[in-house]
């Protein structure tokens, strides 16, 4: 088996930004793995939010998700590394339709880090785990020499459980499905960029970082009855990456309407100023759902009844035509494509 030729001889930052380059990197890493799944479970090949281990003789299966957490700065408006680690892991489990059970955590620390900073992160981690009702059952700690990493890196494994016949998967979108987003997009990435670049243009802009448990809880019956065909938290690469991923894996077209997509004014302002595309900016507490059109209104109502889903909207639908592509009906009525983002968004000149 030959390795796919990658378009660069070195790993660039953009290889981790959720776009095409990241796909190349994952392909490079996973291509030669020979044993990729357990029985009929979801394995590494599906590149979904997590994997499943079907339990023989039971109607349930274990859902596993692995996640590395690197964020800079460690503390940002609306959250910190500890909260991010729990939310990211738990949300990945929920997006597979699984009930979160337990988490393991690896903390890699740079030599010289202050104990009180570590304490703040750990306290947040514990507090959020309690809120998510997930047990912290194992972990590991490593210290690296000063300068070999930036303060702290965390890595987690999430473990959940779900019925075998629940199929909430990236490759399960059906023509005529409606697409729901559970809240405004781009808050997390924009809040981070603003605090990182020291723009100070919008003091009230906070990350949307949150557990999606509330939404999972109100949708349990719809999940069980397969009214929801796919769920995804649009993290790196934003909704542009998530929707393209769906369209490609499900072999369908996705049409979204610009004036239906909730975006906060501040997020738009920062993006316009820096020349960034809000559709490519990460969220950490939002979900996209592709749902059966016959149940979309009741599902939307349930999501809107939650605290984190009050701004939810139906933003588009799935079509058989234009397969593997995402189209946008713009606010003035024109049509264009939303492309898979390529890499790290770079602010433009004027």
């Amino acid at each position, binding site marked *: 088996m030959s390795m796919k030729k990658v378009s660069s001889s070195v790993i660039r930052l953009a290889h981790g930004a959720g776009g095409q380059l990241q796909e190349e990197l994952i392909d490079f890493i996973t291509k030669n793995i020979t044993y990729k799944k357990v029985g009929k479970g979801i394995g590494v090949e599906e590149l979904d939010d997590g994997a499943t281990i079907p339990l023989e003789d039971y109607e349930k299966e274990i859902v596993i998700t692995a996640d590395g957490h690197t964020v800079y700065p460690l503390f940002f408006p609306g959250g910190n590394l500890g909260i991010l680690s729990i939310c990211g892991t738990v949300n990945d489990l929920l997006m597979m339709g699984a009930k979160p059970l337990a988490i393991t955590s690896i903390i890699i620390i740079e030599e010289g880090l202050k104990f009180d900073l570590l304490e703040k992160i750990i306290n947040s981690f514990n507090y959020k785990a309690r809120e998510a009702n997930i047990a912290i059952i194992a972990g590991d700690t490593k210290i690296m020499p000063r300068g070999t990493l930036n303060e702290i890196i965390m890595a987690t494994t999430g473990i959940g459980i779900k019925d075998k016949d629940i199929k909430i998967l990236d490759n399960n979108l059906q023509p005529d499905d409606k697409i729901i987003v559970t809240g405004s997009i781009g808050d997390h990435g924009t809040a981070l960029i603003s605090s990182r670049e020291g723009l100070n243009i919008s003091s009230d802009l906070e990350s949307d970082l949150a557990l999606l448990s509330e939404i999972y809880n109100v949708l349990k019956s719809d999940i069980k009855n397969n009214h929801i065909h796919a769920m995804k938290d649009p993290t790196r690469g934003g909704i542009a990456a998530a929707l393209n991923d769906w369209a490609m894996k499900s072999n369908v077209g996705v049409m979204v309407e610009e004036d239906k997509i909730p975006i906060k004014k501040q997020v738009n302002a920062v993006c*316009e100023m820096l020349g960034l595309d809000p559709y490519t900016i990460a969220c950490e507490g939002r979900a996209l759902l592709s749902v059966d059109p016959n149940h979309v209104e009741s599902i939307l109502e349930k999501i809107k009844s939650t605290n984190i889903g009050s701004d939810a909207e139906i933003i588009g639908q799935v079509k058989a035509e234009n397969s593997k592509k995402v189209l946008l009906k713009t606010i003035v*009525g024109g049509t264009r494509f939303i492309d898979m983002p390529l890499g790290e968004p*770079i602010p*433009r*000149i004027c």
Partner: protein
Amino acid sequence: MEFPGTQHLRNKDFTNKVIKIIKKLINEINKPIKFMHVCGTHEHTISKYGLRTLLPKEIEVVSGPGCPVCVCPAADIDKAIELGKRDDVIITTFGDMIRVPATNISLAELKAKGADVRIVYGPHDAVKIASDNPNKEVIFFSIGFETTVPLTGYEIKANPPSNFSVICAHKLIPAALELLISQSQLKIDGFISPGHVSTIIGLTPFKIFSDAYKVPNIVAGFEPNDVLLAILMLLKQIKENKYETLNEYSRVVKPEGNLIAQKIIEEVFEPVSSPWRGIGRILDGGLIIRDKFEEYNADKKFNIKIKKSQDIPPGCSCHLVMVGKLYPYECKLFRDKCTPINPIGPCMVSQEGTCSIYYKYYKE
């Protein structure tokens, strides 16, 4: 970001009204029409809002040389790269610029090899880096049209630290437009002129199109309905056999421009015959730093000479795309060999570059 009274500029009902009038006008004109804009941000607006899908097929809007990153000659980037190889140098420039391929490599590749190349939002950040790093030479690779020139001029005037200097690769828009319009084979029926540049230089430099070359010209803003209104205003002139320079962007552009900015440009820089990547040398097409400020002129300070450079790599059609002779998808390399990840020509790099915009928003 909204100015008072500008809500209609992204309003669909208003768009529908404008499109209706555009359709009526083109019916009356009854022949195919080709307009050119010369600003990457206009192309961005047109593509981002899908405006071409709203226009009648008789109206073609082509993209001219409106991307400052794209027209910056490889030799200037090579110069920044040569200087960036030195241990005591920090190269600073705008984000888009660092990925543009020059003769051999880009500034981004130089950075990956260990050179200190930093993205800044403007020259003021570069000056700050110079103050913070007194033992380093901090060079600002200054590119852009009239819009970015005053910022650099202001910093040069404001007595920056002596370890700060500028590679001046600024280009001037009106001279380039005149060259384009004199190339008769383009057959442009009207120009959409850049609002940002006009904010600085005013309307007068653009009047040459309407006065001397008798082509209608509208200075336009950057909201979707700004561009559609400009098209409507151009069609109206064509229908009435008029050729004037009119201001669609009057909420921002004053007829005389920004006099303070013009004064700074005049004081710090002088126009010079200058090479444009893909287009060639243009009389008064660029700027150099006046001798009075030569201590901040990196060219004089370091005396780097680039012997041989290559603007357009073999197979690349950027030089044709830039003057509206070719659509990006007509280039053999487009999307296949040339992508924003691995750009071969300059137009595939910047978010203002026509090829990069087409790559993002259109699927042939």
